């Protein structure tokens, strides 16, 4: 009756240490955890093909947290769920590769891929109330993947489920509660426990804190942070809330209309955003220190991805648009500080500063806000 019920007990990490299970047979142990190249996922509608993800590349390193940011409809969720093809029936990964320890998941058959879902890459779903069965006990639901995936006997699985619940800060005896008996934050914690059930290498958080109040949101983020350190998880966090990314993530991937706009270490990118879209996103964050009356907005909305604009997809909304932007798709250029950007203002071979442009009227965005850092929580 001493530390046995303390969820933060350091011994817990040893209980479920990193990679207790062997890597999949085909895995190359020297390969990188996750390398996504030129991923393309299209939705087929009766009215046309929606290129929801159109040539996205990124990497996830071991133990790293990567944030994917962007407006609604920019392909954040589709990108992440394409990794293990958890997509609606009318969506299809049409190209690119998803290499998990060197194994290309994009070319795996549905059956072969099933082995990787949840065991290697699991998902914390948005809206925990809907992802939990209202008429089954929470503990049983957390135990479900352990039984179904790992083939662990029921009693042992239930014991592990209680352990997991404790790990995410839910008392063991609440395992017998039904979802409606838990608070919103606890339900989200239970979802996290479920995502951790098979000891996955990568956890995808699909807006895990949306619809939670700010205090609970902070607790959930803190929990994810702790679990990441404790279990050595790698995390992909999808959110439209840049402050969440600033607080939790190591790197951030800013998406616009199914493509990468800018990607790089959180600190570097947030303190010196290059892509006009990133700049405008950051300018749209309320800032205690600045003018209280005006908040930056980005006029317009993301394009219809059935007929995306030619050239740079952001050009119709970009205040710094050049002629070239309307015709030619900008290449992604990586600079020495680790930031990758796809914008004609930052040509390849440059030093990472914006190339001089003919002076144009900056419309829409508040020019002083464009290079301003977000309110708080920046990495040092």
């Amino acid at each position, binding site marked *: 009756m001493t530390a046995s019920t303390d969820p933060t007990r350091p011994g817990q990490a040893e209980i479920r240490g990193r990679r207790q299970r062997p890597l999949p047979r085909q895995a190359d142990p020297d390969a990188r955890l996750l390398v996504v190249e030129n991923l393309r996922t299209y939705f087929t509608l009766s009215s046309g093909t929606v290129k929801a993800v159109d040539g996205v590349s990124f990497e996830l390193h071991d133990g790293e947290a990567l944030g994917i940011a962007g407006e609604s409809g920019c392909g954040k969720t589709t990108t992440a769920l394409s990794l293990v093809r958890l997509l609606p029936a009318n969506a299809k990964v049409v190209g690119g590769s998803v290499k998990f320890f060197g194994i290309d998941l994009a070319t795996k058959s549905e059956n072969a891929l099933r082995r990787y879902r949840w065991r290697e890459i699991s998902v914390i*779903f948005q809206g925990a109330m809907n992802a*939990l069965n209202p008429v089954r006990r929470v503990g049983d639901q957390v135990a479900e993947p352990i039984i179904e995936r790992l083939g662990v006997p029921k009693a042992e699985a239930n014991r592990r489920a209680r352990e997991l619940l404790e790990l995410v800060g839910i008392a063991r005896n609440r395992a017998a509660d039904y979802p409606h008996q838990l608070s919103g934050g606890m339900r989200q914690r239970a979802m996290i426990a479920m995502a951790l059930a098979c000891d996955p290498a990568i956890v995808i958080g699909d807006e895990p804190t949306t619809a939670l109040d700010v205090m609970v949101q902070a607790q959930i983020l803190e929990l994810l942070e702790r679990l990441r350190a404790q279990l050595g998880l790698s995390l992909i966090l999808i959110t439209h809330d840049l402050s969440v990314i600033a607080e939790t993530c190591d790197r951030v991937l800013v998406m616009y209309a199914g493509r990468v706009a800018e990607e790089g270490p959180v600190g570097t990118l947030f303190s010196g955003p290059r892509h006009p879209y990133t700049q405008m996103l950051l300018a749209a964050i309320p800032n205690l220190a600045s003018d209280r009356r005006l908040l930056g907005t980005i006029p317009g909305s993301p394009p219809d991805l059935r007929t995306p604009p030619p050239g740079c997809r952001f050009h119709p909304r970009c205040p710094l648009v050049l002629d070239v932007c309307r015709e030619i798709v900008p290449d992604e250029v990586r600079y020495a500080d680790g930031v990758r950007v796809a914008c004609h203002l930052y040509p390849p071979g440059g030093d990472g500063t914006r190339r001089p442009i003919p002076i144009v009227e900056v419309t829409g965005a508040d020019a002083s806000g464009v290079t301003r850092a977000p309110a708080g929580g920046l990495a040092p």
Partner: protein
Amino acid sequence: MTAASVSPANPRRERLRLRMHSAREFVGRFAQHPDGVIGLAILIVFSVLALIPTLLVGRLETATIASGLPLQGPDATHILGTDDLGRDILNLTVHGTRISMLIGLLATLVTVVIGTSFGIVAGYVGGVVDAILMRITDFFLVLPTFVLALILAPIVLDLIGSDALILGIRANLFVTVIVIGVTSWASTARIIRSQALSVRERMFVDRARVIGGSSGHIMRRHILPNVVNLIVANTVLTFAGAVLTETTLAFVGLGDPFDPSWGQILNAAESRGAPGLGAWWFFAPPAACVVLVVLAFTLVGGALDDVLNPRARLRR
């Protein structure tokens, strides 16, 4: 301090404790419905009658051991009078309870098992399977009970003889069970399917699929628990319907003449012209029993629907 709140050592006892707890909660909520409680009390009385008729009224009277004179009105020895063979009506009615309830129970079992399986599979799997299962359901939905009984009863009796036992039940009764089961599962299937269709679209079903649950697992563990309230409420009403149908079938002469059910007594009363002779005691008791049982099931069904449906609970 006794670690009873955690008790990881004995999850089985913990589970049992929880079951007991939810059972008590359920009883408590049910008790708030006086109509349901009355219905339940009536059913308990009839269940006792069905279980121990001989203890209550002596062994079943036949023409040879009839205890009274033909068509005696109610008096001190024969509280409910006698029939045209001098048998005690109370004796017959109490013994008839067993057959009526047994047939109701078995027919309900058939109905619920077939109806639920069809409904859940059709609703969850969908597509071609759904279409095929629902066309089959539609076929049974429009089957007339009487015509089916009229056709099936002689065929079965011809094939196996009227004295044969099927699963320990006399062939005649078995036909009644099959006929009622076969003609009433279709509406249950429809009801369950509609609910399964809606549950299937819920996100936790997708989540279960992602986690690795097979279709069978999802149907058993996720769809079934979500339609169980419908099944229970529906079962109770099906039971009432089955008792009524059994009575009707027996009344028109499709029952088993050797096992007295309420319908059989009514049939006998009708064929001996009891109403015309003013022998109301011949047909009133079994008729009252049928009405009471059906009423009781309906009351319990309504109360259960209220207790099991969380939204109905909120309305109160």
